[in-house]
């Protein structure tokens, strides 16, 4: 259940970039090699977002496929489950190219247009 920690971190990151305005959407990129359960993350996010700038915000999860690269023959391939051996040369020295992402890509915030008018 580390999704609760991750949801709190997402909420804190979004709030830091919101400049005190209400957040309506948070776009998060999640690599397939991260152990994140989307349903669980959404549930936790809705919970930790309560009474914060993210309350009611939509959590948009973009799942990034896992791609590995073989150091021996430079072959790149998408992997959905083990084994992690290179399918071309059977080498075991492989490194992830994509699929380890866990980042807040962007947020959508609500701008109060009448607030500017009130100041002038």
């Amino acid at each position, binding site marked *: *259940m*580390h999704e609760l*920690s*991750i949801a709190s*971190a*997402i909420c*804190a*990151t*979004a709030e830091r*970039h*919101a400049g005190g305005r209400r957040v*309506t959407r948070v776009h*998060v990129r999640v690599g397939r*090699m*991260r*152990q994140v359960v989307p349903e669980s993350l959404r549930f936790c996010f809705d919970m930790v977002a309560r009474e914060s700038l993210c309350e009611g915000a939509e959590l948009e999860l973009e799942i990034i496929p896992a791609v590995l690269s073989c150091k021996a023959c430079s072959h790149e391939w998408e992997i959905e*489950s*083990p*084994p*992690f*051996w290179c399918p071309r040369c059977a*080498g*075991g*020295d*492989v490194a992830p190219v994509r699929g380890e992402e*866990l*980042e*807040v*890509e*962007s*947020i*959508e*915030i*609500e*701008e*109060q*247009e*009448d607030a500017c008018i009130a100041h002038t």
Partner: protein
Amino acid sequence: MHRTHVKVLEDVLDANGTIARANRADFDREHVTVINLMGSPGAGKTSLLEQVVASLPGVRVGVLEGDVKGTYDADRIAAKHVPVTQINTDPSFGGECHLDANMVRSAIPSLPLGEIDLLVIENVGNLVCPAEFHVGEHTRVMVTSVTEGEDKPLKYPLMFRACDLVLVNKIDLLPHLQIDMERFLYHLDAVHPGVQHIELSATTGEGIEQWRDWL
């Protein structure tokens, strides 16, 4: 009222990573090597530590025990007369299923870093969450045991990939079990090609010398 799109591009666990780097800097300043010891509950993490903490020639060991609750493991290590600090991830029931960098940071003032060479951080027993949180360690070791079955690397690939050494405990029980060691090792290699492993038993002491040499 209109909506504005704001680019963020920030790692979600950036805060944890920053604190982990601060922990690592503190450990390096005191010349302390740090191991993050992970594995499922009951795999034998504490038992394998008990076997070695007081018998590493020329290496002064300290232990940081992470548990959801209680000081049972810390008491066992303290009986070996090595410095030990307990972190509980929750003072009541439940609580976090892993240690994070901030929990370890909060324990640093109570660790005698100047008096030890090696710090072993025994993580909360769990095969999923601890792999996601660096705490400032130099290396990661995981403990599995033959009673957990030959399929575990396939079921928890990221934990088995996140470590530099796999300790396979309880080999004294092999005659009583159905587990096929060759298949287990094949699965381990499929998930983490080339990872080093040691087969041992905290009960009989078999393989402990190899574990001690690795440390």
